[in-house]
């Protein structure tokens, strides 16, 4: 495998990862701090036969992405908190109608217009619960420029495999970070291509219950002429409010995540085997935590880091396995306490779970985390 080393900004790495993954359609709307993704895509896509369009607003952008993906083209959009809020209804449509797409959300300070140029991790729960109703969610949280590239490719793969929207969550710091990135040789990339339905049309059920729970998708022009709707629908694609049908089809959407957990979940453990103080953090906060854990180890404190790369579904069993000798859990995050709620849900009955929060538009520094680790260790 040959690879080329390129110095890339986080946002550019997202665009390049998308191109490498086979994304050939991007619709977006300018918003700090994500705009460089759109800018890069506007330059790259025409060169590879794809299409870039700047739409009239955030809602139009995600709607156009769903249209393009329905046409059979791998598609994405990028935004930040306020735009992510505007896109939520259509993200729900993507989940309901099982239209693959990727949404990059570069998190900035909120609520509302908030602090456009400052980092935040305030959209962790928005990614999970932002759209109404019970729906499957996949959200990935890369922590470095290289990882933005890799996880963008993975986002497309998961989206195509499970026919659902996949959200990339990273923050302003990583989005504007310049780091060297090893770009994999395209021929060595493992890319997932959507399963397309084939005739005959008479008996075809576009939302059939298949063995893996993911029905092949009909592509317009291929002769199947099906109906796609955001209304609750039966296997035939047509609206139904029959309680049995509603339960069955909604449950199948949710089950796609449960069946795919092993494939979807990604995480990283640093020194967790014997860790008494376990830090759980994602994104840029995890990089501060990694430095802090190193410092704590140098002082003889058994600290470790569990870093979820997949935030939703949360890698629950992996976290439990990392708890081993943990006496306390510390969750540093750039919000008033979101990820900590999930950690408390998973292990709060047996362990003290503490948050370390910043809501001032500043990243959490390693020193702040090491200080708390030392306090928790009683040193």
């Amino acid at each position: 495998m040959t690879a080329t080393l390129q110095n890339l900004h986080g946002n550019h790495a997202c665009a390049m990862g998308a191109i490498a993954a086979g994304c050939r359609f991007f619709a977006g709307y300018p918003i700090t701090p994500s705009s460089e993704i759109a800018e890069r895509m506007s330059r790259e896509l025409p060169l590879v036969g794809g299409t870039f369009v700047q739409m009239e607003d955030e809602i139009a952008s995600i709607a156009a992405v769903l249209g393009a993906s329905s046409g059979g083209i791998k598609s994405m959009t990028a935004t930040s908190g306020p735009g992510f809020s505007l896109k939520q209804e259509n993200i729900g449509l993507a989940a309901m109608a099982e239209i693959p797409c990727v949404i990059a959300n570069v998190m900035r300070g909120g609520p509302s217009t908030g602090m456009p140029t400052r980092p935040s991790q305030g959209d962790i729960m928005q990614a999970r619960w932002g759209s109404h109703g019970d729906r499957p969610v996949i959200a990935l949280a890369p922590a470095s420029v290289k990882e933005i590239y890799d996880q963008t490719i993975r986002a497309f793969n998961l989206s195509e495999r499970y026919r659902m929207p996949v959200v990339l969550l990273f923050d302003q710091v990583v989005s504007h970070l310049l780091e060297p990135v090893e770009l994999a040789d395209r021929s060595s990339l493992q890319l997932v291509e959507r399963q397309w339905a084939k005739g005959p049309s008479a008996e075809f059920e576009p939302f059939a219950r298949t063995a893996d729970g993911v029905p092949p998708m009909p592509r317009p022009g291929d002769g199947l002429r099906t109906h796609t709707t955001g209304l609750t629908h039966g296997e035939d694609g047509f609206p139904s409010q029959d309680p049995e049908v509603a339960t069955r089809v909604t449950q199948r959407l949710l089950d796609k995540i449960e069946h795919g957990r092993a494939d979807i979940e990604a995480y990283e453990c640093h020194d967790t085997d014997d860790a008494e103080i376990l830090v759980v953090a994602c994104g840029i906060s995890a990089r501060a935590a990694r430095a802090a854990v190193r410092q704590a180890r140098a002082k003889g404190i058994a600290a470790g880091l569990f870093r979820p790369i997949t935030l939703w579904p949360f890698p629950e069993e992996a976290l439990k396995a990392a708890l081993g000798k943990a006496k306390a859990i510390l969750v540093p995050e750039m919000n008033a306490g979101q990820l900590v709620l999930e950690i408390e849900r998973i292990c709060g009955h047996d362990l003290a779970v503490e948050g370390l929060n910043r809501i001032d538009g500043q990243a959490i520094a390693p020193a702040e985390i090491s200080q708390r680790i030392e306090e928790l260790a009683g040193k």
Partner: protein
Amino acid sequence: MNEMNSGGFEIRDYLRLDLMPHFMCPGCGHGIALRALLWAVHELGIEKDNLAIVSGIGCSGRVGAYIDANTYHVTHGRPLAFATGLKLARPDLEVIVITGDGDCLAIGGNHLIHACRRNLDITCLMLNNEVYGMTGGQVSPTTAETRLTTTTPSGNSEPAFDACKLAEATGAGLVGREVTMQTPALRNLIKKGLEYKGFSFLEVMSDCTEIYGRKNDLGESAEMVLAQKSDMRPEAYSTITEQPFRPNRLVTGILASNDRPEYGATYRDQAAALRGDDNGEA
């Protein structure tokens, strides 16, 4: 309108018959609009496999599902945005948007003006029944002044939109209006829209007999469409700027044409030139 002069057009060939009976109320004009659309599709020889119908939410949004084609029923107000992505990704498809006065002019108004400006090859049928029928009869952007709706209990006091003027002003390649009673004329208008390479905006004057008509004592369906035909509703379709409280004729046919480059072709030409210059890898 009988099959004798329909030139071999058999509507059943284009419908999903297993979905019948349809959901439309007795007297609703949307079914006539659907017939005119499918008639135009038939006469132009458009393959059902290559036909994509995108619709939003409301009574108009449910019409598309009856068409035996690739049909998409998306979020409220967003069919034009969805169709923009679909058409850019798949220029080989014939993309038609079926929308309503609320879907297109209120919640989706921003998408309409930019679809007109962009001039992508999409045909947009706005079924105007002057009311939010699906949700029970609330005032819409095209409800005539003084009309009673469930949210204008004392009569509507907001001026109504002239959607065609809006589409013309924002650059739609082709703009037209027709009433459902003149079905062959409506079919011809839709044919012109489908044939036009660019964005065509077609306003179809439908009627909501069951809710709007009853609430305002406008009579049965026949009386409502006859009223449209003879342009006897003086307060309807006035504009804000042109003598808003005086009689204003309901003009039909092609109202504006603004022939200019189709956006998708322009983008693809530009991209091809770029690839040529840069030895792209398309």
